[in-house]
């Protein structure tokens, strides 16, 4: 069966919708964050700030970055974990017995690449090695960059708060040992791990007709790796 002919919008509806939702929710966070920040400023006898001042502040920066870093950590771990670990019966998992990076033939790599395969899948050498791991690598690099950014923004926001409360600011090394940094990191990480773990096990026993994230409605609970 040939794929239907779709225009750009319909062919990219999923990424465009979530891209739009991301922008709407980011603006929502900026508006609510400005109000929340200004409420605390008034309590501390400090002047309120404009929307533009808030969205260019370290306070907004850390609130955005601390969430991004945990999302990329989640995907980084998920992409790598699902290579080696299985969940029997889950649509999120490979079949038991297929753990590992699989054969070149199964992965259509090198001489097994087809005419439409990406060129780096075919060429071999370091290009194929990098391309074969590019998804996990990108997620890992983005995690490290956003975690570093959240640590710098968090340090600036923490020191601004310290001064507002008539306390001394801390060094960057000092901030990495502060409860504020690890509280922010762990509170974001726990929710990501919960999400992945929940999804892996829920998908064994529950269905969502038509979603590629779910098994077919009539698939057995013990069937692994199918999507409907």
């Amino acid at each position, binding site marked *: 069966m040939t794929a239907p002919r779709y225009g750009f919008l319909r062919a990219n509806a999923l990424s465009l919708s979530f891209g739009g939702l991301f922008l709407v929710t980011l603006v929502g966070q900026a508006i609510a964050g400005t109000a929340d920040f200004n409420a605390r400023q008034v309590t501390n*006898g400090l002047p309120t700030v404009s929307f533009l001042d808030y969205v260019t502040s370290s306070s907004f920066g850390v609130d955005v970055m601390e969430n991004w870093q945990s999302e990329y950590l989640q995907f980084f771990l998920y992409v790598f974990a699902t290579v080696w670990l299985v969940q029997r019966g889950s649509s999120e998992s490979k079949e038991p017995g297929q753990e590992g990076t699989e054969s070149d033939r199964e992965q259509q790599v090198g001489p097994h690449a087809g005419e439409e395969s990406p060129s780096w899948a075919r060429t071999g050498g370091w290009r194929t090695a990098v391309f074969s791991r590019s998804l996990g690598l990108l997620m890992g690099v983005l995690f490290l*960059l956003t975690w570093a950014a959240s640590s710098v923004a968090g340090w600036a926001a923490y020191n601004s708060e310290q001064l507002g409360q008539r306390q001394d600011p801390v060094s960057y090394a000092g901030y990495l040992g502060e409860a504020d940094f690890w509280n922010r990191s762990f509170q974001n990480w726990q929710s990501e791990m919960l999400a992945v773990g929940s999804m892996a096990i829920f998908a064994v026993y529950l269905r969502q007709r038509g979603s590629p994230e779910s098994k077919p409605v009539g698939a057995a609970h013990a069937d692994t790796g199918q999507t409907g």
Partner: protein
Amino acid sequence: MGTPTTLRLAAVVLATAALGGCAGLQEDDVARVAGAFEDPGAAPADRCALLAPSTLETLESDESSPCADVIGQLPLPGGAVEAVEVWGGDAQVRLSGDTVFLTDTPAGWRVTAAACQPRGELPYDCEVEGP
């Protein structure tokens, strides 16, 4: 993978450099305001004008007098600027005789707390402070 990562790194480096330049100018402003506030030779009205509105209100309410009448009696020894910290819209200046906290307002940097004594992990104990 290469292009978006390289762009991100460049943006972070540029932003840090730009912010570093801005921070230098802000430190000068902050030090000047703190020094002028703590200058016993300056006119009382000028010194009071450097207080943040909420701090001025609290001071006049606590002392039951206009700021200009009482500022000369407050323990504000001032001295040479030893260290300046500026983070976002908040700042701290250590003078040889005092520690002063400031905030950025539409009218410029203003003093939120002065005549401050450190108390270890607790906030500084300040004679002049806001609500």
